[in-house]
């Protein structure tokens, strides 16, 4: 059975079905529907909902619930995410699972509430202080949230690390038909680190302060090795008409949807354009991009920012290959026709160049 639901509400429902029993959040547009949905749904399901006094409090409540063994989540939008970074850094240092949702809006500063992809760097580079990484998942449709959200909780538990779901104002606000039939009951993860009271066992401590530099370094190497395992095992992406593509569009989330619309038009004109859509923004799908370059393809990176992911594409190509970039910052949503025009211009220019 499909229901017409907003991305925000569907995300909340998927979280509850994935075993999220604790939600803490502070209202900010454009993700308020998620907080409102959880206010009703989580207590119904027997869980905990608190409208916190700030984003800082919310992420720290998540940390408390996580260390107590619960699946916990918070959500916000760009300015609020900046406040949460302190807590995310502690979650990473303490090796505690959590899911954090960012429905990005135009920035910097207060910016505006229009959909944007300007928090890519913040999300994929750790975001807060210290050497750490978070897995970043970028869904492109309301239905895809029903896969991304349970995955986010599983990855958080599997690696004991915060996981970010990076959406945008449009994904949050937009309603689409959605079915939750694919969500299975959550897996049980052994949690031998949680605080329950030291009943019948030695007391435990969870901390991130390591005075001894050797100990701190070893802890950081341990985290680093964990991030390496994530890079090896958790890269996810989607491709569209890639096999014969002479130009490969790289776009994610809502941007990838718009790009897909453009590519369909380009194909009608017999232009061989395909797409790689990163689903994990970190770890970044560098390998498939490199392979596409080896097949001679050029790249067209499209973002709703002034250019952030394009740097990861450049890193993936290690300076080789041709990359074109088109971005619209500030919450402007380009149309498929606009992209169609820009891509075909680059396509014809480079075809002429080759002759």
């Amino acid at each position, binding site marked *: 059975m*499909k229901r*017409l639901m907003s991305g925000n509400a569907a995300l909340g429902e998927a979280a509850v079905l994935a075993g999220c029993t604790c939600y803490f959040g502070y209202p900010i547009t*454009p993700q308020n529907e998620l907080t409102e949905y959880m206010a009703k749904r989580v207590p119904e399901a027997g869980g905990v909902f608190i409208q916190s006094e700030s984003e800082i409090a919310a992420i720290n409540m998540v940390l408390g619930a996580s260390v107590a063994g619960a699946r916990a989540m918070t959500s916000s939008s760009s300015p609020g995410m900046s406040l949460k970074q302190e807590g995310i850094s502690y979650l990473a240092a303490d090796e505690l699972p959590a899911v954090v949702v960012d429905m990005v809006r135009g920035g910097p500063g207060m910016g505006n509430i229009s959909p944007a992809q300007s928090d890519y760097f913040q999300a994929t580079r750790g975001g807060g202080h210290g050497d750490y990484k978070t897995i970043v998942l970028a869904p492109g449709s309301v239905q895809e949230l029903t896969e991304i959200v349970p995955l986010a909780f599983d990855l958080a538990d599997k690696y004991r690390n915060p996981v970010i779901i990076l959406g945008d104002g449009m994904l949050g*606000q*937009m*309603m*689409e*038909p959605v079915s939750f039939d694919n969500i299975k009951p959550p897996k049980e993860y052994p949690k031998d680190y949680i605080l329950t009271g030291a009943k019948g066992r030695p007391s435990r401590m969870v901390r991130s302060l390591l005075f001894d530099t050797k100990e701190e370094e070893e802890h950081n190497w341990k985290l680093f090795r964990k991030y390496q395992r994530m890079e090896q095992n958790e890269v996810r992406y989607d491709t569209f008409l890639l096999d014969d593509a002479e130009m490969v569009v790289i776009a994610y989330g809502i941007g990838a949807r718009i*790009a897909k619309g453009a590519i369909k038009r380009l194909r009608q004109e017999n232009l061989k354009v395909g797409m790689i859509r990163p689903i994990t923004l970190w770890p970044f799908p560098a390998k498939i991009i490199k392979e596409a370059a080896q097949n001679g393809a050029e790249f067209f990176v499209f973002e709703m920012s002034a250019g952030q992911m394009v740097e990861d594409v450049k890193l993936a190509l290690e300076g080789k290959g041709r990359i074109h970039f088109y971005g619209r910052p500030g919450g402007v949503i380009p*149309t498929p026709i606009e992209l169609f025009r820009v891509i075909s211009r680059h396509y014809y220019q480079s075809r002429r160049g080759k002759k």
Partner: protein
Amino acid sequence: MTIKTIFSGFGGQGVLSMGFTLANAAMLEGKYVTYLPSYGVEVRGGTANCTVVVSDEEIASPVASEPEFVVAMNQPSFARFQSVLPSGGLICVNSSIVNTTSARGDIEVLTVPTSELAEKMGTIKVANMIMLGAFLKASNMISFDLMLNNLQEILGEGKAKMIKLNRQALEAGYAFVKE
């Protein structure tokens, strides 16, 4: 076929509900559909609008920069959204309160006196459903019969009591538009 429609008007005229009803009906028909409300400060300013995209294939963007149809329930919406219609597009106007003399010459204008029609039915509240009925006839976007048959599901539990009235309103609007 991908068809994009903008529904617009004052807050309180049931504009979002019109779009939501259409989106729900299209979903039941098995179409791809997106519904995007305008949100934020704009919503509090008294005007409201939403965009519904109905398609036989995956929808690239839920935004309508060049919509096929516009429904305008008040004067400011008429002024604002007639200009985004491409040539040959259709704008359905609540002629009870909208003066359409300034309409562009290259678009089609369907005037529906929704307030008067609604008052005849006893309540101004159904003006939006009358307009939706008229719009569905004019646009021929989805099956009207299928929609009426599933009206309870489409409108949801909250409006179940009003089901009969809503059906009459939809039918009245549908009948108002001549072939």
